């Protein structure tokens, strides 16, 4: 007889059994590693480890299994645990743990522990179909072997185990003998545990805490060299590197930097410097920049780290740690032969500095791609990431609006009201028929502008097969009497302003106050002299996006061409005039 089978715990995650859930299952493995470092990933959704040691540490197999399932539940995954003698029995126990049983009060308990020595008894009740999928019976085509046993009248593993080993071996050969041993609770293969991942991170402690950034940056250079040596010795490189700086008072500043195996030790030390500098940028409490992942610390920018606004230093850097993230095999880096703009060091340095201040997503590089709307033809990619258009460039994209492209494209379309002469909202039917000619445009609550020309609706119905991305809209181009042109769309019965073609707002100097009056119906009329007086410094400030109102309204200084159907150049009315220079 072979040695008695060792206690094995199997964790089975029913939701992660597919081949596409490897990443999620990796999280589960990491969580299990916190309880027991030597874990074998048996198949997608199933992992196993020796239960004897951890069970003694955590106070029993049931307690251990309960702790682990609770930890997996924290990751929002469902799991079942089974403990038995040998991998095969433990696997069956884990599968059976999810089934409702009479012996538990709650009906379903995700843990099933088979007491030591009673594994053959548990196995005897299992159907022979449990043998399907086991390595030992793979050459018997799994399910067929189980079906054959059923046809022979052997419905449970107990029936199979009751046969004499010699008879089974003579009838089914070596594979049958293996199945027979499994059915008796013997002969499970030993676990092939994966070694715990090596810690490739490097750290430097500062004792006493270092209040100035320069010595930390100096240490970072040596640290970066150590990290690169460690990675290179294993033939690895990392996609990103995480820099963590811990303050004496426990605050921690961590940020990921793009690495791609391209950064030298000095360049990495620069990142550390920028990160520490960025930590010092005073941030007012009203700041809404959510892209920074610093802990919102404030300090005076005098090179002192982690000091409070009132100038009292509450500690320096205690630990600096560099953690390689997304470790991959080092395969080198090759630039494309053509068509790749090389980012010079000078530009990269500037962009990274700004990223250090505002966060990774704050510096973008536009990528021109395909698409039907102006907004979706430009994708902004954070600096340092792969520039790839979201939609294919080469496709024809029927439905695009041809001609002029708006110079102002709002990141988020703005709501507007478009009404006809009678003041009734203009609507577009499902068959793309417009209810009336648009006459007034009001956006963002400012007085309406007279529409002097319009074209549309140009319908767009795309991605009907995808409920999340499907949309139907009718696009318009509108021309208002202040000389501006607008790109508008009707979607879900609402008018949206997507962009504008203007070069400048309607009037030369804008008067937000009511004293200067405007050119819309019902506005208070004021004399030109009054309007000039209104041009004080406060009213002459430039338009800022925070003010959430349109630039410039009032009396138009230039009327666009009166509408004609003739081609563009000829559509101007009035006599030619020489260039004024």
């Amino acid at each position, binding site marked *: 007889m072979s040695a008695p089978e060792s206690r094995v715990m199997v964790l089975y995650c029913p939701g992660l059994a597919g081949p596409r859930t490897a990443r999620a299952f990796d999280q589960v493995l990491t969580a299990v590693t916190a309880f027991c470092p030597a874990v074998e990933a048996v198949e997608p959704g199933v992992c196993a480890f020796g239960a004897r040691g951890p069970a003694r540490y955590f106070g029993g197999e049931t307690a251990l299994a309960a702790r682990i399932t609770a930890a997996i539940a924290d990751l929002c995954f469902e799991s079942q645990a089974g403990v038995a003698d040998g991998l095969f029995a433990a696997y069956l126990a884990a599968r059976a743990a999810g089934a409702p049983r009479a012996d538990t009060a709650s009906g379903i308990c995700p843990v099933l522990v088979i007491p030591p020595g009673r594994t053959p008894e548990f196995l005897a009740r299992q159907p022979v179909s449990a043998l399907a999928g086991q390595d030992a019976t793979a050459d018997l085509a799994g399910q067929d072997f189980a079906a054959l046993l059923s046809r022979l009248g052997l419905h449970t593993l107990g029936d199979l185990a009751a046969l004499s080993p010699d008879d089974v071996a003579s009838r089914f050969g070596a594979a049958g003998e293996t199945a027979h041993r499994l059915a008796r609770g013997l002969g499970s293969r030993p676990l092939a545990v994966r070694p715990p991942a090596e810690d490739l991170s490097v750290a430097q402690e500062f004792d006493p805490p270092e209040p100035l950034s320069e010595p930390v940056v100096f240490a970072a250079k040596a640290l970066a060299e150590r990290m690169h040596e460690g990675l290179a010795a294993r033939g690895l490189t990392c996609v990103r590197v995480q820099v963590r700086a811990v303050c004496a008072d426990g605050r921690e500043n961590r940020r990921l930097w793009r690495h791609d195996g391209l950064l030298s030790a000095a360049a990495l030390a620069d990142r550390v410097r920028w990160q520490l500098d960025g930590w010092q940028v005073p941030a007012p409490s009203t700041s809404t920049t959510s892209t920074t992942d610093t802990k919102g610390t404030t300090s005076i920018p005098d090179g002192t780290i982690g000091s409070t606004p009132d100038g009292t230093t509450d500690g320096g850097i205690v630990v600096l740690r560099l953690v390689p993230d997304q470790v991959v095999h080092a395969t080198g880096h090759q630039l494309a032969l053509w068509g790749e703009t090389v980012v*010079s060091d000078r530009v990269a340095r500037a962009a990274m*500095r700004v990223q250090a201040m*505002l966060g990774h997503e704050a510096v*973008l590089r536009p990528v021109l791609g395909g698409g039907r709307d102006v907004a979706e033809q430009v994708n902004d990619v954070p600096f340092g990431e792969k520039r790839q258009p979201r939609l294919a460039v080469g496709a024809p994209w029927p439905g695009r609006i041809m001609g002029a492209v708006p110079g102002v*494209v709002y990141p988020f379309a703005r709501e507007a009201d478009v009404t006809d002469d009678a003041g009734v909202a203009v609507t577009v039917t499902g068959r793309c028929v417009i209810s009336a000619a648009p006459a007034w445009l009001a956006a963002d609550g400012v007085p309406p502008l007279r529409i002097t020309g319009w074209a549309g609706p140009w319908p767009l119905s795309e991605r009907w097969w995808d409920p999340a991305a499907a949309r139907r809209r009718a696009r318009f181009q509108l021309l208002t009497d202040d*000389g501006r*042109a607008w790109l508008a769309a009707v979607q879900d019965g609402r008018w949206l302003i997507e962009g504008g073609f203007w*070069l*400048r707002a309607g009037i030369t100097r804008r008067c937000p106050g009511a004293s200067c009056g405007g050119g819309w119906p019902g506005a208070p009329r004021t004399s030109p002299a009054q309007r000039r007086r209104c041009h004080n410094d406060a009213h002459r400030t430039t338009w800022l996006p925070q003010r959430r109102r349109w630039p410039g309204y009032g009396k138009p200084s230039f009327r666009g061409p009166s509408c004609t159907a003739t081609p563009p150049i000829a559509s101007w009315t*009035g006599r030619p005039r020489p260039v004024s220079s």
Partner: protein
Amino acid sequence: MAAEVSRSPVSQAADPLRDSTLPVLPALRDGTLPVLPALRELLPRGGLTRGSVVTVAEFGLLILALAAGASADGAWCGIAGVPEAGMLAAAGLGLDAERTLLVPDPGHAWPQVVASLLDGCELVLLRPPAQAPAQVRQRLEATLRRGRGVLLVVGDWPGAQVRLRILTQGWTGLGDGHGRLRACCAQVTADGRGEAAATRTRWLWLPAEDGNVSAAEPPDIPVPERHLQVVRAG
């Protein structure tokens, strides 16, 4: 041979800056960043003088067109504080999207952001989130002179070398329920300090029908028309 080719335009044209079809000579480019040919007449040296501040009253195609010439010539362009910059239109004017950095929201630390951008980019387009104090302006101008870059500002910037404004604009091609926007004729005026003190006004197609910027011919130029409007009945 190369020297001959580069010198020949000078001998043919009395003033190379007046003839917008000629390439800008390397000697003239040392101190300036190139702009689109149609915009040369508006600027004192036929280009954006390095280390200078150029303002445009409001954000629109004009400031993108100012940046386009240098970007097409190989300069990096940073755009700070303008989340609604239409990069597709800018690319149509010649701005190279590959060599563009966008910082849509520079936040409260915008002077540091702009200074960092000026270290890396030759051209920075900025709409300050707030009125810049004189001290901040002076520090940025010092950075600008050191880095030999050009700062294009949307809005007001006291002490700017060149100020550009659009006086009038008129779009063509749109009818009453038909047609589409094709081109815009705009009157642009430039003034400033020093050599840019003289006011210059030009009519431009911005953009022209082919998407570029070109000088408007006299017959094309619209006449601003006064439309009577019923203000109050009775």
